[in-house]
């Protein structure tokens, strides 16, 4: 990849949620290690896919980056400012440049607001077109057209739309402030297959047209492969592998990535007939008490004593290919099909 401008830099980001007991004298009895030290860059104009199973912390990571959750520690550099240090008005100004598309199109739109109100709310908050109702209305119409909805729908309410159309409204709202970065938190997983393709195509078109940068959070590995330039794989609060899309899918190095990829079913009976699966044993451990050393060691078939003793460093094994595994080099060529 050619050297591009870094738009977002995440450094050692931690987000722990306290578990409290007691009502009056409440005390902390444990912590959920939702995000436990992640670092990565997002380049201008690219799509970074963030994949992992439920509970691995990928959504929390997305929200913490946008400061919807304040990080426990670590920093998020966006346009030369550390967002984790910003408060109030300064943070609000930065927020114009970064928006979010939510997972559930049924829960993320206020049922008592019209489409026009929903889309113009961010403009109101940021004082855009203040006192220029006509201009704001025109902007809403423009946005609706951009996401493939009829501008005449502006006065309707969310319940009059289907899931796919609602997700388009969510996209229009995210675009209202002309952001640079959009965090897409599982934007298609609540939709039917044929509608998913519509929304993914829309996101791709918008990226080309408006030069957007996406952080695309999802659990569907084949869709992430389709849309992303680079992909990060999360497991139990940390990133275990980050690489260029082709490298990651062709030559995964982390045993978890290998297992994850081999578990994805192919829509093809001929391929499925001959495919070998790595079946992982057991479940993901609890993020309250993550295993010592390497977090994946409890389910890893390659685990050695060193994996219990030492947490593997997240290191660049091949140029641009980061892996957190002690044995990444040895496992590199041991690729499942």
């Amino acid at each position: 990849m050619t050297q591009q401008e870094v738009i977002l830099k995440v450094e050692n980001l931690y987000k722990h949620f306290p578990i409290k007991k007691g009502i009056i004298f409440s005390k902390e009895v444990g912590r959920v290690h939702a995000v436990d030290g992640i670092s990565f860059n997002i380049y201008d104009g690219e799509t970074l896919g963030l994949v992992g199973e439920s509970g691995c912390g990928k959504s929390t990571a997305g929200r913490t980056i946008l400061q919807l959750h304040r990080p426990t520690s670590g920093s998020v550099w966006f346009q030369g400012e550390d967002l984790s240090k910003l408060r109030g008005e300064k943070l609000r100004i930065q927020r114009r440049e970064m928006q979010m598309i939510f997972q559930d199109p049924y829960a993320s739109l206020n049922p008592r607001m019209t489409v026009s109100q929903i889309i113009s709310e961010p403009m109101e908050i940021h004082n855009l077109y203040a006192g220029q109702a006509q201009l704001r209305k025109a902007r809403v119409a423009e946005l609706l057209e951009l996401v493939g909805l009829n501008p005449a729908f502006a006065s309707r309410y969310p319940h009059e739309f289907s899931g796919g159309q609602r997700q388009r409204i969510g996209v229009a709202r995210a675009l209202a402030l002309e952001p640079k970065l959009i965090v897409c938190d599982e934007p298609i997983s609540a939709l039917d297959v044929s509608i998913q393709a519509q929304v993914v195509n829309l996101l791709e078109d918008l990226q080309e047209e408006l030069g957007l940068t996406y952080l695309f959070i999802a659990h569907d590995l084949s869709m992430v492969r389709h849309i992303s330039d680079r992909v990060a794989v999360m497991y139990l609060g940390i990133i275990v592998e980050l690489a260029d899309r082709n490298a990651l899918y062709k030559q995964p190095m982390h045993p978890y990535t290998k297992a994850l990829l081999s578990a994805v079913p192919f829509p093809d009976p001929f391929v499925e007939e001959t495919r070998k699966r790595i079946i992982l044993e057991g479940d993901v451990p609890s993020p309250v008490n993550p295993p010592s050393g390497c977090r994946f060691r409890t389910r890893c078939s390659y685990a050695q004593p060193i994996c219990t003793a030492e947490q593997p460093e997240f290191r660049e094994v091949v140029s641009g290919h980061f892996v957190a595994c002690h044995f990444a080099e040895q496992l590199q060529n041991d690729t499942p099909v």
Partner: protein
Amino acid sequence: MSDLLDVRGLETQFKTREGIVHAVNGISFKVKEGETLGVVGESGCGKTVSMMSLLRLIPSPPGKVAAGEAYFDGKDLLKMDNEQLRHIRGSKISIVFQDPMTSFNPVLTIGKQTAEPFLIHNNVSQEEAKDRAIRYLELVGIPNAAERYNDYPHQFSGGMRQRVMIAMGLICEPRLLIGDEPTTALDVTIQAQIVELVKKLRDDLGMSIIWITHDLGIIAGMVDRVNVMYGGYIIETAPVKGLYSQPQHPYTIGLLGSLPRMDESVDRRLTSIDGLPPTLLEKPHYCPFEPRCVYAVERCRHENPPLMPVDGDEHFSACWVNPRTGKEHK
């Protein structure tokens, strides 16, 4: 192979405030002994309702099985009295529901709930039922099954609960197991575990399976035949390989095209199907897919196509047009 299940002209409707919803519109299909049938379609296409109708699990009112016959082992499930049906449900036909989080009774132990169908359908003691339940919990891969017998559902993770559901479905060794999106709520690695498990159990116990899903990927590697449903109709049915390599109905073609594949070039644009699924408030006299179809011709607007043989005598498609040539079938 003889036919274990033979469904003819099944029709299910729901009365709602907006009018009658035609959820299933006269579908017919068969499941042979030992065969695995996949039923694919998007939400609201009638795939779950049709299976629930067979077992008379549709709440009535508002639901009603308006017409049809469903022969299981030669006897019509829809005409039986409740007593006869009770002997079949849970024992000869069992169903594994979609949501492992809400399908259990939270105040009964996992063990009790697993043993329950066996206890009801067989004249056995509590002890025997418990032993058998533990054996089946072990079979589906619950570690320390004997100890976990007395645990409650909330003490199990989603993947574990789904395994327990399958154990419950298998404990009477049914001849037909219906899985209603049994892995949809689960992560891919757990999904892979469950699929491998079901395949193994199928081969060991020799039962028939109907696997309902919206995911064309998951069934590719496990079923023999596929029924594709749309708007309450079966619009294509074929052996699995024929369906994936030579899909005939424009909807199936669109559905397969809208899935990204891990072994293809990433530059391909996904083919989306424009428009929305039908509302089902009327029973169309035209092809239900016509409003979204790129191949539609004049005839599609007037006549609803029946399933017609294409490409040999195993592959049927309900379409007037041959999508490969874009011309009407003769």
